[in-house]
């Protein structure tokens, strides 16, 4: 039987506010346990939450970016359950009236096909703390630093039909929230994570199959692997005559499998009700207009502009606009390189990204500034150095703080464009390799490369390749 896969994602994006959603405590990552939890975060008797207005602004920006409806009157609700890292015994979230309603986003798959994915809703909520099970000799440690960190939970429609689509959607949202400056997107620190709802149904069937929810997946690779594993598990189970049970499953990246956490029967009744400690969030047109005015250029628009303005290919523009910082780096490089867009694009996508990946760095902390890179690109463009020599210059730029011109000068890397000098070397090589010359003239065209190589070797790679070609052809 042909199976159709149906996937919906719930993405948790941590909003990068300075303080928590309902208290003044810092949200900085990595502090000593429980040093960033104030009386409100600890859920002490008598404390009350006060909404951080910044999260409302961030949610509104997100809504505007996905063309969603911003609820003019959204409500915080209490989600009741007991867990040691949930200090109040309830999580403040939004239930019936989320702040963001019904938007959509376009994704693009590797083969270039495009697809609209619906966003059902996005709501604000507080994160819980962390339970630490190691180092406590059979007991559990609780770190409440993360408790009260603001989250935007973005819930998609079940519109995705493959793990690849799910990854494309997740990447799109990941890029968007970073563009908006509302989430740092750091998946290793848990700032961006997702749950996936997965079901299958016979191709052509309208009604949805029973779904399972895969919890807390924190990398693009794991999303793809977890979904593929789960789809395979469901197909095998059904084809063997079994039935899918609605349940929550945990993806174990090490074992590469999903395991049941709890079934629907064990599902909690969260007893949601409006939080009487917080007033409804009322948003008016003026507020939204002010938010709209601060919207940055979004990824799709930027990519189109890169294609139009810099004559880049769709793919290149896609890579260069994959993050707002990378796009900014590219544009700064183009300026520094006096408009050498093609060179800038190629060097950034090749050497710069390669170098960053190798050293595990991000574009924002690249050892090579856009200005210094641009300085080298100018020298390629004006034939001061060849592309090949430029690799040496690039290495030196990467390792030092020197400017390209200083490197070229001090290491004598300037290209030789004096045709007399080149001719002299070529004459010598022709004289010393009479056998090869004869073969070439007899029709063995491939030997041309040999002569070029000899000339370059003799001139330590500094000869202008075009001139070498031209003179060689003439002389041979």
């Amino acid at each position, binding site marked *: 039987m042909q199976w159709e896969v149906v996937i919906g994602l719930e993405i948790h994006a941590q909003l990068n506010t300075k303080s928590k959603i309902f208290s003044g405590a810092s949200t900085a990552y990595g502090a000593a346990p429980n040093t960033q939890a104030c009386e409100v975060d600890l859920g002490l008797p*008598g404390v009350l939450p006060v909404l951080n207005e910044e999260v409302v602004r961030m949610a509104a920006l997100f809504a505007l970016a996905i063309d969603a409806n911003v609820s003019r009157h959204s409500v915080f609700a209490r989600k009741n359950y007991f867990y040691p890292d949930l200090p109040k015994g309830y999580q403040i979230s939004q239930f019936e009236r989320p702040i963001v309603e019904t938007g959509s986003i376009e994704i693009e798959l590797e083969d270039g096909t495009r697809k609209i994915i619906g966003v059902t809703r996005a709501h604000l909520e507080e994160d819980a703390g962390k339970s630490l099970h190691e180092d406590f000799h059979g007991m559990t440690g609780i770190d409440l630093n993360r408790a009260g960190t603001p989250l935007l939970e973005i819930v998609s429609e079940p519109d995705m039909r493959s793990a690849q689509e799910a990854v494309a959607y997740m990447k799109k949202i990941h890029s968007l929230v970073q563009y908006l400056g509302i989430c740092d997107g750091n998946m290793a620190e848990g700032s961006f994570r997702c749950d996936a709802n997965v079901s299958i149904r016979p191709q052509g069937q309208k009604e949805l199959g029973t779904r399972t929810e895969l919890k807390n997946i924190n990398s693009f690779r794991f999303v793809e692997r977890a979904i593929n594993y789960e789809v395979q598990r469901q197909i095998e189970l059904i084809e063997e005559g079994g039935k899918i049970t609605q349940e929550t499953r945990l993806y174990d990246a090490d074992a590469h499998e999903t395991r049941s956490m709890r079934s629907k029967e064990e599902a909690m009744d969260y007893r949601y009700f409006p939080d009487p400690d917080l007033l409804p969030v009322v948003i008016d047109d003026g507020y939204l207009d002010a938010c709209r005015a601060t919207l940055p250029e979004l990824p799709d628009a930027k990519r189109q502009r890169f294609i139009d303005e810099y004559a880049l290919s769709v793919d290149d523009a896609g890579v260069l606009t994959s993050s707002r910082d990378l796009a900014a780096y590219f544009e700064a490089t183009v300026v520094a390189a006096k408009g050498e867009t093609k060179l800038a694009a190629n060097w950034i996508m090749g050497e710069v990204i390669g170098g960053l990946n190798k050293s595990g760095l991000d574009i924002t902390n690249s050892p090579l500034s856009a200005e210094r890179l641009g300085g080298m690109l100018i020298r390629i463009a004006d034939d001061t150095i060849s592309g090949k020599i430029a690799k040496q210059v690039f290495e030196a730029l990467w390792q030092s703080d020197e400017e390209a011109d200083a490197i070229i000068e001090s290491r004598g890397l300037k290209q030789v464009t004096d045709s007399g000098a080149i001719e002299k070397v070529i004459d010598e090589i022709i004289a010393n390799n009479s056998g090869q010359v004869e073969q070439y003239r007899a029709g063995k065209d491939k030997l041309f490369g040999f002569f070029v190589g000899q000339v370059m070797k003799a001139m330590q790679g500094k000869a202008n390749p075009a001139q070498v070609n031209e003179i060689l052809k003439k002389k041979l």
Partner: protein
Amino acid sequence: MHTQTLAQISAALHAKKISSEELTRDYLTRIKSFDGSINAYITVTEEEAIANAQRADKLFAKGEAGALTGVPIAHKDIFCTQGVRTSCASKMLDNFIAPYNATCVAKLADAGVVSLGKTNMDEFAMGSSNETSFYGAVKNPWALEAVPGGSSGGSAAVVAAGLAAAATGTDTGGSIRQPAALTGVTGLKPTYGRVSRYGMIAFASSLDQGGSLTRSAEDAAMMLQAMAGFDAKDSTSIDKPVPDYSAELNHSLQGLRIGLPKEYFSEGLAAEVEQCVQDAITHYRKLGAEVVEVSLPHTDLAIPVYYVIAPAECSANLSRFDGVRFGYRCKDPVDLEDLYKRSRGEGFGTEVKRRIMMGAYVLSAGYYDAYYLKAQRIRRLIRDDFLQAFKNVDVILGPTTPTPAFNLAEKQKDPITMYFSDIYTIAVNLAGLPAISVPVGFVGGRPVGMQLIGGLFEEARLLNVAHKFQMETDWHLQTPILKADQ
């Protein structure tokens, strides 16, 4: 001095007839002598009180004293007090030393009051008789075999017995006004949002409001002056200027329109209580007020609605008491579930557990619409009843409670009867209105209270209306005769 009002005590302090330290020591001595049988205090902070009194005396010496400087008061043990046990009268918080001050406590401290200690109450403010306290029942100073009312029973009793010049209280369904009525003191519950709830341990967040128990309306004005105001730490507190309450006490009542809700003068109201209230109404007529009948048609729904909404909110508010971070933890838990079940099972008393269970039930899937949502809809109708009535009258007047203080244990076995002792007070919380209970007489030696209800933020008018009555009568100045403990 202990029979004097806060205003009189303040005047005596300013006239240097007595020092705050002398006064504080006098109250501390009285607490030692009389509180053994009344049981109104959970914690007495003697050393701190004396130190604060000495500090107050220095302010008097420097001429920097305010109206409340050096005045010995008590806080209901529901308000967090930094460095002092804040128990909410529960075994759950018997070991809880609050690491911060409630906004109310801080504001009163800034105003210079001397806190004598923390008063007894119904556990987590759930009760109408002060019998649900982990620290034992409070006795009514007028009749030790009777209850003082609840949940602010300890605060009412210390004011009635002269064991503090005034006390803070909280009112969720009548918890200031009902004990004030039953002990013959003046109890003010301000408009919801007038006094910050920060640091006040939550029972039912949409109903809870801090207020005062005092000997007079004039005293209540002084207390409210210090307690009221916007607090950025409480999203439900309202950013509205605080009027000068004392300045408006003496306005004439000529032409004041008083509404008597016919539903409050009906079946269930004891005839002798009604007589006391009618006598008070006669006084108001003499003062130039016009008295008309009004109707609050949804009155009979107030108690059922309250017992859906309040437990729903409390079921979540009390979830933080789980034995994990503070408060009571059961001995040797075998696992997490055992820790939760036994810590909460052993730490909470019966009434608290009953309300948590009711609340969890009305919020649970399949019942939410039928109970919680419906209750919220009726709550709006109840509020609309009042708004409608206030189109025609300035204040609403009626009995605070249907009967005078009942005897200890009399209603303990029957929660429904107990709940009905708040029949006239509960609707006011559901509507968020301010109200004050004022003593209007005695029945069988036990005090009777009259309730005045005002429109939103009409505290000044309520205090004015209550004060003018107290200028004509002396019910509020009566004091019980106490026997010193052996």
